[in-house]
């Protein structure tokens, strides 16, 4: 088929931030499906909780303190996360490097406290369905936490190499910030379901 050039693209930029970039949409897509996974698991938990009048099934109350500390740490981490986002948008390599180190540390910290959350549930996964659901919800979120912290650390290392000095990498930092928001936001309802919902029954 004959062609008729009628548009010049040569002046277009080679990367973009946020919704302009396909990676951002990809991240959003994965958040949507993982968020759906969280929603389905939470739905299953609520289904069982409404099915049994004495939910918690005579198990002891979970100790909420480790969970509360994790929650606070995660919420606090949102502040540097968004400061980092600003630097990434401005492609400022120095502050971005520092920000990534800070975010790696702020990712590891809740992960350490998370270790103490499992025993604080005061029940094993194979004791009854209530215990199973607590472990499943906590485990599901922990998986996301671990993968995102791992991702953050790898990206931090990458930012300190010669590869870090490129627009594409700053886009990756932006997406990492975006995903961390997701990990923090999904935790809030799960935190309530795990630690506060059993106190109602």
């Amino acid at each position, binding site marked *: *088929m004959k062609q008729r050039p009628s548009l*010049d693209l040569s002046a277009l930029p080679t990367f*973009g931030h946020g919704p302009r*970039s396909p990676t951002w949409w990809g991240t959003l897509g994965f958040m949507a499906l993982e968020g759906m996974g969280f929603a389905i698991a939470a739905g299953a938990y609520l289904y069982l909780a409404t099915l049994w009048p004495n939910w918690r099934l005579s198990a002891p109350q979970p100790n909420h303190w480790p969970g509360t500390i994790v929650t606070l740490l995660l919420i606090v981490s949102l502040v540097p996360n968004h400061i980092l986002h600003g630097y990434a948008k401005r492609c400022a390599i120095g502050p971005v490097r520092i920000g990534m180190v800070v975010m790696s540390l702020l990712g590891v910290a809740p992960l350490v406290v998370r270790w103490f959350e499992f025993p604080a549930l005061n029940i094993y996964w194979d004791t009854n369905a209530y215990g199973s659901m607590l472990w499943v919800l906590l485990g599901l979120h922990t998986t996301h936490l671990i993968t995102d912290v791992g991702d953050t650390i790898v990206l931090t290392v990458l930012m300190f190499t010669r590869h870090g000095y490129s627009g594409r990498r700053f886009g990756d930092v932006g997406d990492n910030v975006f995903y961390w928001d997701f990990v923090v936001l999904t935790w809030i309802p799960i935190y309530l379901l795990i630690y506060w919902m059993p106190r109602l029954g």
Partner: protein
Amino acid sequence: MSSADLASERDLPPEREASVKGDIAPEHDGPRDTGMDDAGLHRWLTRTWRTPPGIIGALSSVDHKVIARRYLITAFVFLCLGGLNAVAMRIQLSGPQRGLIGPDLYNQLFTMHGVTMMFLFAVPIVQATGIYLVPLMVGTRNIAFPRLNAFSYWIYVSGGIFAWVSFALNMAPDVGWFAYVPLSGPEFAPGKRADVWAQMITYTEVSSLAVAVATIVTVFKQRAPGMSLDRIPLYVWAMLVTSFVVVFAMPAVMITSTFLILDRLVGTHIFNPAEGGDALLFQHLFWFFGHPEVYIIFLPATGMISAIIPVFARRPVFGHLGLVLSLIAVGFLSFGLWVHHMFATGLPKLGASFFTASSMMIAIPNGVQIFCWLATLWDGRPVIRTPLLFVFGFFFIFVIGGLTGVMLASVPLDLQVHDTYFVVAHFHYVLIGGSVFPLLGAAYFWFPKISGRMMSERLGRWHFWLAFIGFNAAFFPMHLVGLWGMPRRVYTYPAELGWGNINLFISAGAVVFFLSFVLFTFNLAHGALKGALAGDNPWDAGTLEWATSSPPPSYNFARIPIVTHGEPLWAEREALPVATGLRVDVRELLISTVAEAHPDIREKSATPSIWPLLAAIAVGGTFVYSIFTPWAVAWGAAPIAITLIGWFWPKGDPEDEE
């Protein structure tokens, strides 16, 4: 649309200014396609976009067409295997009290048939068609996230091999494709058979989800300039809606299968009613996925029909907007009717009636689609070629399936026909009529694009009539035998019930139907080797995939086309307006805005890489190992992490760095 107003709406992004300030490495520039002659452009683009030679090169390919071809062939192989399962079952059922196949093998056979057809054939093949066609139809050079796409294929094929090796080892799931607990649970399914089901589901869903995300982003961000929402071809719309349904439905089945394997492997009690769990929870979770699954298979087929009918009716499709809205409506409604698979479980009557109403409602958008297609055909005598024949077959069969679906939506009526051969007949009418017939039509329609050659029209007609007669002979009598009381999933039945003769008839029909696929295979091979050369646009169709050569070059389009109409090739008969200015020495493609498809960014597309294959091996190994011990997840984390880092770590290509 002229280049001037496109350019004026594009504002310079702040990033550019930052790069001027020297905060980021200055962009290397390379040769552009502007003003380049066709032969030179072809040489440059071929060198940049080709799949590297050699075995490693082939395994590293990220070309969406190469991946899609592999997907299509693999899915077709699984179709044949699933078909052989069906033939074996039909031979066993051809007479009462036949002793050819015992219950142990029979239960594995029908489970493998269902699992193969649903998870290894139907979903992958519709997604594979999308992987091939969507980038071509939206006028881009590769799918978004091409390495993820390659990874999906490897995951899918290893999941399929896993399932079928299990079958060869007498380890195939034998609990039905929806594997209800407690039958599939820890107490009643000894051994690893049910675990194979659970992990194989997780496997294939990972691959479907990744493809869905890639498809959505391709449609959102990689459309050719000017392809605003109202100019997106209906097939692409269908794939877009399907991908959204995948994104929201598949996590449910992954959660279900994960719950099941946790119950079986580490002793959780999620489905154990004695310790606070519930067996019906499994059904709710499964069908929350299971019903949309039907539409995941059906919606792409409607897209194919919307692509085929206008070409042979020689006019744009009637009611374009209505069809798009119907697609979206079906996508939404498909999430609201899962309970109609559970009417026989004794749910509260009022709730059940709500789901009757919602199940009936989904027939309305489907009706809109049917009527719009019919109206498109009313403009005059259409050109009857094999693809259109299969579309006619679709109307004939699918409308029956849809109407029996309305019957199943009625709570009281469903109590008589649920889990009988009536249901078997219904969903084969819906799935084969609604999806396989359009797929076969699509195969004849797009085969010239994929292979560069035409399939035989004469054999095609033979194939159609054989498939059509075989199908109806095999499945129509099943409605009756179901009403006469024959439940599904029985490996035999007593002679006194008088189902012998009709089952023999059904089995004969099934063999004819199977033979039609043998003929199809022959026609495919014959077409690929000896078919007449097709040329770019053998059907004189209007969408962008026909604007490039057949088969398309590795870079799809020498220059990115500009879209001025819903059927761009019909609107621009003299010369296709194209955009210039992309680099030819690196894999550069055009990113456009979501709604209006204004050109926005020249982005690099990923280069070939072996890492997706290695990552798939690591993930697959972890999945297989995890049916034996939960620690597999811990052990598998390291290789998965290593391969993923290897995948994403920049190798110094311009595509990675800029």
